[in-house]
């Protein structure tokens, strides 16, 4: 027997937020409507009726009985994939408006609709997303008798998740609702708070797919559709007409107050007091940062730096004016302050428009003023005793920004290069090398034991910062610090190919400027063996593995030991804007094994340390600011010009002023071009078009001149294919012994090895036969 007594039972539950199922839903109203859909409980699902005392067919429905002042909607974007049983993130589009009327999802609203015989669908044709009213149709809306202002909400904030189910980044868009504000929105992203245009909410928060168009110079448009991985996860709506204690019945409020337990003063805290010190500290930090990152302040410091490198007007050959010895105290303070600013502030800035200028000026300063360079190296070495302020560690191990790392490396190199040129520093470093050898001799030959990274107690004074001005060597201490870093590198691999660059640069210092002393010191400190352990890891020789357990740890083990701050996930998401993630962004776990190309700088460092100096990597072409038909123009780099000049001189006719027709044919043959396929007319055209020499009174000569040879290459490098060929030509010609290279394998992203021609210095270029 069915229960003819239609009863209604309400069971109230307090909710912190409303979970909205968004799978298959296009907007927030569809998701909320799903929540209030009726569910028929029949058959085995019948519900026990208190009146009939038996299980009865029941209609189950969820509705909101009381609306809060701050309504939190949680979009269920994390879901289980039943095929793979992995958590996935739904990036589908879910729209929401700046305003939200909750009337139709409340108990009153649903009852009103039932009484009018309708359901909660939009049968009157008015979309809930339409906030402009429903026109004539709205007149028939049964909900119209309920006052709108009781149910009206305005969007106050959006919490965004950018990333995938396994990892990502959270940030928020929040409206400033203080009385004096004009509804300004801000983006809160970790410590960055920036103004935000609410018109971009759709782009930044709705999710779905985005089409990106790339227009090629030939007019072809390439469209790529990709998912937006940054989308709203929680919506915060604030009630337009707030309901508070003041609007309660005064009698009822009194009654509630009576029954409320007496609170201790500390219990009655709003919580604000607890956060006050943090807020004060954050505000102070913000004020400091605003000042330190202010462009005007940067301009001022750049000007100060410029003064440091300005030549002495009285005598340009003497040290820069501000750095003159008579202004010693000023000099030291200014340089010290500028270096602190550069390494501790500027390299941390997100916007560094003049970074190259800064680095160039500091390099210039150090190359001109050895005292400043030495003072900097002393400071750099002294800082290795600490952890956080240690610039070597910061920029060779921890820094996730490659531009900052490269800038630091350039400055370290310039300072070390200038410092080692000092006779005194060379002498101290030679003593340090001998001490390292003596230290190692205690371990015997081929010891299967851990070898030290720094000097032992007996020789510690040789790298003690206190004695830098006397017998201790700052460069020795830096080499020791590099040894320590090499042992730690496998646990922070992603950020430190530049360590190899620094070692390589140090090993390439001109022998006439103390380069040999530096190289020997690094070899005595076993840097080649340490670096080889870093490459071969667990497959190193067992003696090497035992000697350098940190460097030779396997990639898999290193990954499990990665320190949290060096977790590659930490920086993969960009700070600004919605971002189409690349597979590299997402595949951040499980790729602890570096790719071979990431070892390139290490191999160059080993080669340089071993004195195989044909391993210089130089750009052959440089991009200029000029453009031709929207395409960048290229120039030959200085090393390329030097190499081509050598090639030209090698290829000139005997006793001839340049390359004649026969020499050009032979040259092409050497370059791998079959001279039979090159018509004579083409060679004559080249000679006619480009500057030539050796003519018999005519306007054009019979020999292609050096200018003509370079002009030919300058023109041909404008196309990518030619640049590849040029790379091959230079390689083959600089070392004519290398004649059968496969060109394509040598050309890597516009860089190429120019062997031998670049020896320790260009003037040592020679050709071996």
């Amino acid at each position, binding site marked *: 027997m069915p229960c003819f007594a239609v009863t209604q039972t309400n069971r109230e539950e307090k909710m912190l937020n409303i979970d909205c199922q968004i799978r298959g839903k296009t907007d927030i109203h569809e998701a909320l409507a799903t929540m209030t859909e009726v569910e028929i409980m029949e058959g085995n699902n019948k519900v026990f009726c208190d009146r009939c005392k038996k299980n009865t067919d029941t209609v189950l429905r969820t509705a909101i009985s009381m609306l809060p002042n701050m309504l939190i909607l949680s979009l269920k974007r994390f879901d289980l994939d039943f095929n793979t049983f992995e958590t996935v993130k739904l990036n589908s589009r879910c729209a929401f408006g700046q305003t939200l009327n909750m009337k139709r999802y409340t108990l009153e609203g649903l009852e009103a609709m039932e009484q009018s015989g309708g359901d909660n669908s939009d049968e009157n044709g008015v979309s809930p997303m339409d906030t402009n009213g429903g026109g004539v149709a709205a007149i028939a809306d049964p909900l119209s008798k309920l006052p709108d202002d009781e149910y009206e909400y305005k969007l106050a904030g959006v919490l965004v998740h950018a990333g995938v189910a396994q990892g990502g980044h959270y940030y928020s868009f929040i409206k400033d609702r203080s009385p004096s504000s004009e509804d300004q929105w801000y983006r809160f992203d970790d410590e960055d708070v920036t103004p935000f245009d609410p018109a971009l909410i759709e782009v930044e928060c709705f999710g779905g797919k985005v089409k990106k168009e790339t227009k090629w110079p030939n007019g072809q448009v390439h469209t790529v559709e990709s998912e937006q991985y940054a989308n709203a996860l929680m919506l915060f709506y604030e009630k337009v007409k707030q309901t508070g204690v003041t609007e309660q019945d005064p009698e009822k409020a009194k009654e509630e107050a009576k029954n409320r337990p007496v609170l201790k003063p500390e219990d009655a805290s709003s919580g604000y007091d607890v956060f006050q010190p943090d807020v004060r500290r954050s505000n102070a930090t913000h004020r400091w940062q605003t000042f330190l990152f202010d462009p005007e302040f940067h301009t001022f410091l750049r000007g100060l730096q410029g003064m440091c490198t300005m030549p002495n007007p009285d005598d340009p050959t003497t040290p820069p004016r501000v750095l003159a010895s008579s202004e010693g105290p000023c000099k030291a303070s200014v340089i010290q302050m500028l270096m602190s600013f550069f390494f501790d502030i500027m390299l941390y800035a997100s916007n560094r428009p003049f970074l190259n200028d800064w680095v160039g000026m500091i390099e210039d300063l150090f190359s001109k003023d050895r005292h400043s360079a030495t003072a900097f190296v002393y400071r750099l070495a002294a800082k290795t005793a600490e952890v956080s302020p240690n610039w070597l560690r910061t920029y060779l191990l921890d820094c996730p920004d490659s531009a900052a790392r490269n800038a630091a490396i350039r400055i370290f190199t310039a300072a070390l290069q200038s410092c080692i040129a000092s006779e005194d520093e060379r002498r101290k470093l030679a003593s340090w090398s001998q001490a390292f*050898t003596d230290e*190692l001799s205690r371990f015997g030959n*081929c010891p299967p034991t851990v*070898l030290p990274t720094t000097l032992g107690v007996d020789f510690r004074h040789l790298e003690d910062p206190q004695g830098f001005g006397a017998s201790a060597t700052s460069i020795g201490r830096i080499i020791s610090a590099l040894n320590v870093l090499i042992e730690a590198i496998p646990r922070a691999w992603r950020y430190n190919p530049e360590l190899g660059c620094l070692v390589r640069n140090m090993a390439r210092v001109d022998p006439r400027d103390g380069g040999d002393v530096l190289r020997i010191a*690094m*070899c*005595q*400190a*076993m*840097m*080649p*063996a340490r670096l*080889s352990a870093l*490459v*071969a*890891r667990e*497959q*190193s*020789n067992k*003696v*090497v593995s035992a*000697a350098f357990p940190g460097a030779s740890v396997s990639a898999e083990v290193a990954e499990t030991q990665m320190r949290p701050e060096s977790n590659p996930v930490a920086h993969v998401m960009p700070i600004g804007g919605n971002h189409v993630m690349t597979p590299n962004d997402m595949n951040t776990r499980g790729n602890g094994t570096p790719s*071979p*190309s990431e*070892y*390139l700088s290490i*191999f*160059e460092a*080993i*080669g340089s*340390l*071993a*004195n*195989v*100096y*044909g*391993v210089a990597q130089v750009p052959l072409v440089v991009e200029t600011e000029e453009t031709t038909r929207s395409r960048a123009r290229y120039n030959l780099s200085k090393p390329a010009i030097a190499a081509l000049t050598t090639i030209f001189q*090698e*290829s*000139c*006719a*005997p006793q001839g002023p340049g390359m004649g027709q026969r*020499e050009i044919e*032979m*040259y092409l043959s050497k370059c791998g071009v079959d001279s039979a396929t090159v018509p004579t007319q083409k060679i004559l055209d080249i000679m006619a078009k480009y500057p030539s020499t050796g003519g018999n009174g005519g306007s054009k000569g019979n020999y292609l001149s050096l200018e003509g040879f370079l002009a030919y290459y300058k023109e041909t490098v404008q196309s990518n294919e030619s640049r590849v060929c040029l790379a091959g030509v230079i*390689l083959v010609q600089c*070392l004519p*012994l*290398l*004649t*059968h*290279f496969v060109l394509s*394998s*040598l050309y*890597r992203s516009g860089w190429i*090895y120019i*062997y*031998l021609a670049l020896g320790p210095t260009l003037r040592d270029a020679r050709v*071996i*036969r």
Partner: protein
Amino acid sequence: MMSSENDQFRTTSESVALDTAHILDGKPLNGGPLSEFILDSFHFFNVAYSASEPLAEYLLAGLCYRRKTDSLIVSTLHAIYSAPTGWGGNETLGAAIMVRFALVFCVPLDFSGLTLVFTFYEGAESPCGYAR
């Protein structure tokens, strides 16, 4: 000046070997303590070969010069033996061929039993290997 037309071009490996010999000028490379053990690891040269073939050749030639290389030869042969077939093993075989064949037979060597010793003959005009 331009070389004569009758000059025979040398192979890459020959060029690298001669070039390195010229740079090192008769003295074995001094990379400091334990640097001789770098030669024991074929994996090291395998990675170097993948990073940059010319650079790997220079490094190998430099490190082999006047050094015993039997352990490298053994580890290379082992790598060839255990390399996967097909595409998967191409990289390993490429590096192995560079190590085992190209440079081994370009660099003049002193073959004695199972021990291969790479040496350059002073004044040698072209690199050559011989078995004893």
